[in-house]
């Protein structure tokens, strides 16, 4: 537990932890933003307990580029790291995602997929490159033959990404829906589903990757004239969404702020429980000052869930007494809590 007033560096610490686990920024948009203002480079070192014993991860960011080392050796294949590490982060930004635009919900889903399938990361990069290439060709008015050449990889990687998203949602929905029913006793039930852009591209149970890829390619050519006018590709996983409903109503329009927060809380708990069920161990959990954004009842539920979690949790707060109190209330004792004070970028035990 890291306690300190705002602006002391608590979130920066979680940002560093997330970077060490995923090699990507948590809240920052670009790697370069992680470097202290006026400094040339940023460096994060972390010690992980992995199956093979303690391992040291070191990441340096300079000039917008990232160099990662594992036990002093350059990390050629980031998968090497991800295979062993799962991390779930929960920040105040997440609390708005129910009612925000679809990109935050896609990111929520993709981060959950990444914990289960590290390959999603490089596939997402390939997909983005294929998508940008196709959009560029649409805008240029390039010949069909050239554009179609990029439809191929776009549909192929797109199908892979989409099937993994659907799969993760099938896995974690039951956990998330149950968590929601516990946190929002008696309120409407939560339902999560994968919402596909394009009526002809709806999910088909048991569809193979190659069949979906063929369907996506067809979907792309069916919308060609419209896409050409807009200079933008209108279907594919980049246009899909995570559909969230309460009762029968879309949460995006009908959920109250409290409900919207409970939904995100339930999703994160569902993700953690799914990882524990699938991989046999809990992920590292990073919580950034979330308690202050939740009402007492939901906070108590979060604390009960944390107390029941076998894994490690790093959380920040401006009021440790309040949080320790809530933890104690949750299960009669605070458990193994270590408190650190964060002041002006320095962390001290106490």
């Amino acid at each position, binding site marked *: 537990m890291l306690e300190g007033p705002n602006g002391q560096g608590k979130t920066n610490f979680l940002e560093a932890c997330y970077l060490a686990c995923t090699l990507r920024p948590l809240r920052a948009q670009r790697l370069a933003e992680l470097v202290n203002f006026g400094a040339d480079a940023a460096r994060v070192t972390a010690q992980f307990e992995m199956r093979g014993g303690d391992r040291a991860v070191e990441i340096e960011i300079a000039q917008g580029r990232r160099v990662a080392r594992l036990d002093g050796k350059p990390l050629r294949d980031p998968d090497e790291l991800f*295979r062993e590490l799962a991390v779930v982060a929960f920040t105040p930004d997440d609390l708005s995602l129910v009612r925000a635009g679809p990109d935050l919900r896609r990111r929520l889903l993709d981060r959950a997929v990444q914990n289960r399938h590290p390959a999603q990361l490089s596939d997402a990069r390939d997909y983005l490159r294929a998508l940008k290439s196709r959009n560029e060709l649409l805008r240029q008015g*390039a010949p069909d033959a050239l554009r*179609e*050449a990029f439809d191929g990889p776009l549909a192929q990687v797109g199908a*892979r990404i989409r099937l993994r998203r659907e799969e993760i949602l099938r896995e974690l929905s039951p956990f998330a829906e149950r968590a929601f029913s516990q946190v929002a006793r008696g309120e409407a039930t939560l339902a999560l589903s994968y919402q596909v852009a394009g009526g002809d591209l709806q999910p088909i149970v048991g569809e193979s990757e190659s069949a979906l890829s063929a369907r996506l390619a067809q979907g792309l050519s069916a919308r060609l004239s419209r896409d050409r006018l807009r200079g933008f590709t209108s279907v594919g996983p980049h246009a899909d969404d995570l559909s969230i409903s309460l009762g029968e109503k879309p949460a995006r329009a009908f959920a109250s702020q409290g409900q919207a927060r409970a939904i995100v809380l339930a999703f994160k708990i569902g993700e953690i429980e799914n990882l524990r069920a699938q991989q046999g161990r809990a992920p590292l959990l990073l919580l950034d000052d979330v308690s202050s954004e939740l009402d007492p009842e939901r906070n108590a539920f979060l604390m009960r869930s944390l107390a029941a979690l076998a894994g490690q949790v790093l959380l920040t707060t401006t009021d440790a007494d309040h949080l320790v109190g809530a933890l104690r209330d949750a299960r009669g004792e605070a458990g193994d809590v270590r408190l650190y004070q964060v002041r002006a970028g320095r962390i001290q035990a106490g």
Partner: protein
Amino acid sequence: MSERVHDPIARLAVLLSRLPGVGEKTAQRLAFHILESPKEYARELSQALLALEHDVRLCSRCCNLTAQEPCALCRDPLRDGRLLCVVETVPDLLAIERTREFRGRYHVLHGALSPLDGVGPDRLKIKELLARLSHDGARTESDAAGASSEKIEEIILATDPTVEGEATALYLSRLLKPLGLRITRIAQGLPMGGDLEYADQVTLARAMSGRREL
């Protein structure tokens, strides 16, 4: 060139340090090494460098880099003229040659389609490929200069397994289809001698989705 007289050693060191994998310290060490070597070495080295600039050109047939026209691979009568392997770069060609597995001929595209980098079909050696395929068969004694004749039956698309490489392969396959040749794509998957357990996830995932019937 500036009017200033450059220190020749510093000049050489600066030029050497532009080479990949060579830092400034190494460049300086190399420059002093050349200086201290027998005089013929510097002369031979400079001639070799000039020869790169003067003599190396693209083979008019396969677009490989060569000092002779046509290149050694196109002239070799033992190569199987029925198989044509299309690669992105000359290093790719050399990599396939090292396997000693492929006995056909090559065509080097000198890149892959990449709209984000402004590389379209006209920037690649695709025209040359088409010309080669349409001349093919009609080739006669005019090639007696050295190129042994070829009657291409199969085209193997060996571009990289990247978005751009895949798109290039797809583009070529559609472009070449009307010619009625057999068109194949090199397989992707696990490296031999590797252990499934140690394969990276992307390769393993691709190997799974590219599985074949036994």
